[in-house]
């Protein structure tokens, strides 16, 4: 079974520039998550989709970050304009369904390492 795919793996940009990350979840997984992981910290949830609807975006800095999941499959996360503090690894994860009765394991992609200069 193919895992969660992300691209690019690395990106270096100047502050105030724009950047976009792409995620292809595991086939059949209804729920997709974007996390931000700053060096030395654990991942922090930015946004969660179920199919193509947003379930939770309470920690997404909406003045500069946006995300979409068209057709309930692939997703893109965009930062515009980027700040120095956005330097981090951006992880995408997917699961079959959000936990209701029983838990569904989250599968993470390799992440995109963003450096903002």
């Amino acid at each position, binding site marked *: 079974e193919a895992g*969660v795919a992300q691209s690019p793996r690395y990106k270096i940009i100047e502050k105030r520039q724009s950047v976009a990350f792409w995620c292809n979840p595991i086939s059949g997984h209804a729920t997709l*998550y974007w996390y931000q992981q700053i060096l*030395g*910290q*654990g*991942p*922090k*949830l930015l946004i*969660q989709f179920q199919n193509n609807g947003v379930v*939770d975006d309470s920690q997404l800095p909406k003045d500069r970050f946006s995300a979409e999941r068209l057709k309930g499959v692939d997703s893109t996360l965009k930062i515009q304009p980027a700040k120095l503090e956005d330097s981090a690894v951006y*992880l995408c*994860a997917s699961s079959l369904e*959000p*936990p209701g009765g029983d*838990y569904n*394991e*989250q*599968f*993470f*992609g*390799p*992440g995109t390492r963003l450096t903002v200069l």
Partner: protein
Amino acid sequence: SQKIEQNSEALNIQEGKTATLTCNYTNYSPAYLQWYRQDPGRGPVFLLLIRENEKEKRKERLKVTFDTTLKQSLFHITASQPADSATYLCALDYPLSFGAGTTVTVRA
């Protein structure tokens, strides 16, 4: 405010010994707690989940305990091997809130 704290220091142990990692939390009442492994340059990988009504769970050489009174989980790697070297993250609740992780290095 909600907080998840893991061992602040990295753990260096000799091969064959048991590694014990701690996860303490405040202002959470999690229905379950999870442990993940993360290798450099990779995303976290799910290891174990333990529910609030379970005291202990095992998977091969891994053992997790969950004490909701102490608000603490312990993660044990028995008979450790160099291949167990990684960062281990605990995570609570849904949506997941992660601790900062503890880096374990197993010396041959």
